[in-house]
């Protein structure tokens, strides 16, 4: 079996989220070095605060300040910090019940080693130098010997409330398209198109995905198709795509390569856009170094009869 292809794949997105009144107050509070909780109907204080009572589902909105000091309720020693985590040096994950709160807040604890951490230990917030209204405005917790820190007297109202957060997310993958698609991509590097034939219905799928969607069985017999084909349907694109160096309008179409039972898609060039038609016979145009056909152009043959490609439209 030829080598299966692999390539790095990065999925990255700045998740932009709006905040409700409770989350807005909490995160704005962090920016101002104030920790807020929310009161429930039965008198508990939830930190971090939520908009609905997790037990009764009652709507919550009564904000109360709690201290920036608290007690560790459970912990875990993380000797190998990972990307994005609060500290780059070994630290403890902790749930901290802040003084005045009835629930645990998840964060990091900066401590010299696991022997310096225990459930029940006293800790306090270490504020980030620069704060923007995010959970990371708490840089981490640090060990603290002493009583409850003084409250600032905040009522949860601040100037310029934070109304949204941007939470960047990045995940790194190594993508492999698998056997069937690797075969297709490898053939393209020789400027050939290969499909796979279904052993049951005998249809040839291009590009092959390793399975026949009608019969639900594996396809395996490789079949060379094209290079010429028939345009089965098309559209005229009038919107210029960002970073795409193609003048509009241009034509994008479905092309049934000769010998294939599934049309693939590609750009149609070498013909004015308003002269493109169903049934047009086309062939691929390769550019130097291209990994796939740049576009398809008319072959000059007579148009294909509708009956020869109607199953593929």
């Amino acid at each position, binding site marked *: 079996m030829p080598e299966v292809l692999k390539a790095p794949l990065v999925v990255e997105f700045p998740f932009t989220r709006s905040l409700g009144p409770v989350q807005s107050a909490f995160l704005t509070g962090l920016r101002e070095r104030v920790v807020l909780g929310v009161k429930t109907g039965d008198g508990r204080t939830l930190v971090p605060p939520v908009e609905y009572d997790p037990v009764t589902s009652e709507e919550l909105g009564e904000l109360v300040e709690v201290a920036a000091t608290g007690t560790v309720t*459970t912990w875990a020693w993380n000797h190998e910090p990972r990307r994005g985590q609060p500290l780059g040096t070994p630290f403890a994950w902790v749930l901290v019940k802040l003084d005045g709160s009835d629930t645990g807040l998840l964060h990091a604890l900066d401590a010299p080693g696991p022997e310096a951490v225990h459930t029940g230990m006293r800790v306090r917030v270490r504020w980030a130098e620069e704060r923007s209204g995010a959970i990371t405005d708490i840089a981490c917790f640090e060990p603290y010997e002493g009583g409850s820190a003084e409250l600032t007297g905040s009522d949860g109202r601040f100037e310029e409330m934070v109304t949204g957060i941007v939470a960047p997310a990045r995940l790194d993958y190594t993508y492999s398209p698998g056997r069937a698609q690797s075969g297709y991509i490898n053939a393209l590097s020789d400027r050939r198109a290969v499909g796979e034939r279904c052993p049951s219905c005998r249809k040839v799928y291009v590009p092959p995905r*390793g399975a026949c969607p*009608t019969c639900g069985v594996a396809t395996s017999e490789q079949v060379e198709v094209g290079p010429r084909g028939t345009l089965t349907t098309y559209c005229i694109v009038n919107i210029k795509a960002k970073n795409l160096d193609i003048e509009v309008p241009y034509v994008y179409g479905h092309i049934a390569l000769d010998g294939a039972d599934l049309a693939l898609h590609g750009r149609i060039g070498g013909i004015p856009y308003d002269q493109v038609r169903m049934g047009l016979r086309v062939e691929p145009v390769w550019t130097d170094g291209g990994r796939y056909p740049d576009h398809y152009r008319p072959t000059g043959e007579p148009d294909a009869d509708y009956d020869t490609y109607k199953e593929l439209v």
Partner: protein
Amino acid sequence: MPASRPLRDIAVVAFAQTDHLRTTDELSEVEMLMPVLHQVLDRTGLKTSDIGFTCSGSSDYLAGRAFSFTMALDGVGAWPPISESHVEMDGAWALYEAWTKLLTGEADTALVYAYGKSSPGSVRDVLTRQLDPYYVAPLWPDSVALAALQAQALIDAGDTDEPALAAVATRSRVSAADNSHAQLRGSVPRGDYAVRPLRTGDCPPIGDGAAAVILAAGERARDLCERPAWIRGIDHRIEAHGLGVRDLTDSPSSRLAAERAGAFERPVDTAELHASFSSQEVVLRKALRLDDSVDVNPSGGPLAANPIMAAGLIRIGEAAARIHRGDSDRALAHATSGPCLQQNLVAVLEGDPR
């Protein structure tokens, strides 16, 4: 309140799973899935066109590909159109949806499948993306770290200790010696701390795999399987997403789901638990009232093979297969999703009296 009897008798009549492997680069998801689809069809003699309803579970985040489940549909012959649905969850929840579909009487058979290819990415990082995006996800607490917080809470509560956790892991992997599909079999060292107090031996292997089951209703089930695994009850429950709101040493959602599924009405002889970490078995044994008379995870459980999104469905499949073989008469199957056992599904399966 006693569990109510289902409107129709519905059974798991076939189960198949792949060998679970650390990597399967040569296989696309559909290529990995197809053999198990064919196995369950072959075992029942059904063709894809005979299936009344198809439902699947998977997550695009594992492979980093949008709508990857639509590609997998090629493996079930989705053309011409079929009655189909997908859950972005473990396949156990797909089975729940299929079960409700069969209850309505709109279908008599259902194909349920699930798959996960964890090898392309980093599971510990990927799973952070299911956390609360405001207060938790920006800190990137990984799945092992969150499980470790739960483990420490159990140790502090006196519910377990590190040697007891190691014993859970050892028992699971020794049990898996008889499971040719498992990824880790036989004795596996406790290993170094992953996130203390959990060692690598307390954590599940990361791997790729798929599973499929067929459900059938009433007499159809008897036609398709010599000893159907009747679903006597199935229920799923969720608890607060805030970890600091929950008592991490307990799983009230599992207990409630089990109660509503009828698990406590009579003893079970087998329990397949979706306890991905040794510490989670401690929580679940307590919540589900499983004593030493119950054979827990005779397949080896998730500590031996944990294809994410399929591991919960495999628990139901393994429990059903034991009933099919006559190794069990009444089995409990559990599936979970989310950090520290946030969401829990419990099914009770029974064979006909012998």
